[in-house]
């Protein structure tokens, strides 16, 4: 660093640079720059000592002391309690995944079926972005079909099966305890 550079006046943002230096979190290159500034620049040096004083005072502060019975009070209280089971032990990730797969299948199934029922015609809808007139779609016929009903029943049964497995798992863990 040149002598000219060490004449840099101390600005507001430089305080953060000094705090980083005091906390020891400056990068090696920044550390070198600060050290050179502190050696050559009286303003920087004065500010550094000002901040260092605050830092040292904070380090010398003491913790507050609670009452003498503190530990005993806590221990008396927890004597009546039990440690709760870890959250991960009763939230089975497979169940969560199963529920996710169930809903994704449901949505994909409806989309596939819905699109297969549409009569897409890209040529006759030049004025529209979609190749179908949404106002003329007969939505009721999508839900009045044997395959859709069968699909929904299978999904409901699968959902109930997953719920049963989840509850059985919880019951098993509870009886084990």
């Amino acid at each position, binding site marked *: 660093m040149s002598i000219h550079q060490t004449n840099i006046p101390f600005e507001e943002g430089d305080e953060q640079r000094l705090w980083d230096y005091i906390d020891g979190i400056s990068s090696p290159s920044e550390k070198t720059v600060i050290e050179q500034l502190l050696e050559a620049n009286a303003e920087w040096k004065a500010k550094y000592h000002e901040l260092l004083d605050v830092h040292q005072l904070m380090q010398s502060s003491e*913790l*507050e002391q609670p009452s003498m019975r503190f530990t005993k*009070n806590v221990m008396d209280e927890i004597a009546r309690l039990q440690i709760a089971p870890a959250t991960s032990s009763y939230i089975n990730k497979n169940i969560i995944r199963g529920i996710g797969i169930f809903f994704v299948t449901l949505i994909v199934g409806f989309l596939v079926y819905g699109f297969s029922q549409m009569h897409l015609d890209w040529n006759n809808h030049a004025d529209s972005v979609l190749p179908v007139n949404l106002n003329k779609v007969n939505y009721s016929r999508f839900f009045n079909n044997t395959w859709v009903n069968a699909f929904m029943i299978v999904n409901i049964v699968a959902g109930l099966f997953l719920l049963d497995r989840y509850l059985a798992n919880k019951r098993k863990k509870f009886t084990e305890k």
Partner: protein
Amino acid sequence: MLTGLNDNEIISKVLAGDQQAYALLVDRYQQYVFTLTLRFLKTREDAEEVAQDVFIKVYRSLADFRGASKFSTWLYTIVNTTCITFLRKKKLETHSLDLEKVFEAADSIDSGMRANLVEQKSRVAMVNQAIRLLSTEDAEILTLFYKGEQTLEEIATILTIAPNAAKVRLHRARTRLKDKMETHFADEVKDLL
């Protein structure tokens, strides 16, 4: 010798059924937790009640501590949320970040503190009293950084903010502490340093 055990070893013993081992953790962290709750709640009675509540909560949820962070970081996160919940419930008046309010509060207790300071004339008392003049947020972050032995990343986790925001908040808190010392304890600072 149980007192030589580190936090994770003590937790393993407690989880294995040695409830009395938990007293070691309470002894080890009670001052840190109490100091932090006191930064929020101001009265020793409330602070002690909440600090005890924190240790009871921690005991109940001990199985959820997986050791991904330091135990102290996890503990201080619970201190933070418990204090906020307590304040919401009791609707206690907290010190706001509004500097004007902080200065008003400072002025009202300044004269009493000066008399006390003359008697105590100690660096520790002065710093602790200067911290009491700060807002809850400033006092908390300074305590976590200087006394709670937490890094900026860990403080960010505790306060659920970004590490850079924690750095900025710490910088502002230190600046405000410096201002408080210069305004209210200028003579004492000169004598002590």
